[in-house]
């Protein structure tokens, strides 16, 4: 008798085993290729006939909803928070109140219902943030904000996780606190500025007394129009480069240091210490402080 002969039980078992292996490999490929969220609601060509669907099913294509939110008058400070959505703030000297335009998007209808825009005012501070219903399935929708602000603003705070932040055309001197994890930041005409991003780049233009800009891998570039007497400007990055154009009237104690990046400064500096990639000195009378540090990124301070 042939010991290796396969019986019907063996053939059935091996066939099922091969099918299961193919299903597992297929699921790995689909997960790895990011096909978990299929905006068309279809999978491998499987589509439910339209007649079966209905709104209650929550089945369908991506959804988008734009809305002009009612904003109470009198806000001089603004705080915006999103997760993946972009934040865009623009100044309009002709505007009399803050105008907030929100855009909600989701890959399907049910997810859209689980993400909301929460707007409230606490004193003179207007807060608008993205809110999700609790639960794993409820985090696929996103909110982005487009804000038009009038004159008279004092502070703009904008925070996102992966969305970009842009502040443009706001009247000079407004304090700005901006942070993201992976999105980029761009701002012009800021007063005091505190900006941070982990992997996004930061482009700025500011004139204030306190400037602090930090990234981990993103680059930092921009213009330092002026730095008030007694003020401080700090630029820090791990692997991103730092490139700052400062006004020719810059008057500051300077400290530039990098572990392996190149350090350069266009200003005439009274050098107090220069060793490797470290440069310390004074520009003018040294009435403010400017320090910039990186691990591997280059540092360049130039004259406008």
């Amino acid at each position, binding site marked *: 008798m042939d010991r290796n002969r396969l019986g019907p*039980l*063996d053939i*059935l*078992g*091996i066939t*099922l*085993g091969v*099918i*299961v*292996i193919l*299903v*597992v490999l*297929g*699921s*790995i490929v*689909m*997960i790895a290729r990011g*096909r*978990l*969220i*299929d*905006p068309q*609601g*279809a*999978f491998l060509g*499987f589509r*439910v006939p339209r007649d*079966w669907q209905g709104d209650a*099913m*929550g*089945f*369908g294509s991506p959804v988008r909803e734009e809305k002009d939110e009612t904003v109470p008058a009198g806000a001089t400070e603004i705080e915006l928070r999103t997760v993946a959505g972009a934040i865009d703030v623009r100044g309009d000297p002709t505007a009399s109140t803050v105008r907030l335009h929100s855009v909600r998007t989701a*890959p*399907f209808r*049910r*997810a859209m219902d689980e993400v909301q825009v929460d707007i409230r005012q606490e004193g003179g501070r207007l807060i608008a943030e993205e809110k999700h219903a609790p639960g794993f*399935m409820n985090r*696929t929708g996103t909110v982005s904000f487009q804000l038009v602000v009038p004159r008279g603003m004092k502070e703009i705070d904008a925070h996102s996780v992966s969305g970009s932040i842009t502040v443009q055309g706001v009247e000079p001197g407004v304090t700005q606190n901006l942070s993201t994890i992976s999105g980029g930041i761009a701002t012009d005409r800021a007063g005091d500025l505190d900006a941070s991003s982990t992997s996004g780049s930061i482009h700025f233009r500011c004139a204030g007394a306190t400037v602090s800009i930090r990234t981990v891998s993103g680059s930092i570039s921009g213009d330092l129009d002026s730095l008030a007497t007694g003020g401080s400007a700090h630029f820090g990055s791990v692997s991103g480069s730092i490139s700052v154009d400062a006004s020719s009237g810059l008057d500051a104690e300077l400290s530039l240091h990098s572990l392996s990046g190149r350090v350069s400064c266009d200003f005439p500096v009274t050098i107090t210490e220069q060793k490797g990639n470290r440069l310390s000195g004074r520009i003018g009378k040294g009435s403010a402080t400017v320090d910039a540090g990186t691990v591997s990124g280059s540092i360049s301070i130039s004259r406008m």
Partner: protein
Amino acid sequence: MSDMNEKMRLARKIAERKVAFIRHAISYLVVIAGLAVVNNLTYGGYQWWLWVAFGWGIGVVSHFLSAFLYQSGALVDRLAQHELEKMNGPK
């Protein structure tokens, strides 16, 4: 007689393992297919059933390997036979 009983016991054990795997695999395929249909009928965008297919599938594949490829004692028996032949030397 004792050797015959031992072989019968082993054969029964292997057959039970194979039948258990077949039941397991059929349950897996039926449930996963059901989940995929329910997923796309109700909440079509997010293909969450893939996670179940992947996680449970690892278990079913392990079951398949133990039932058909690495049968209990078969590998040890083969190694023991090999060692025995080495001890006896060439005839």
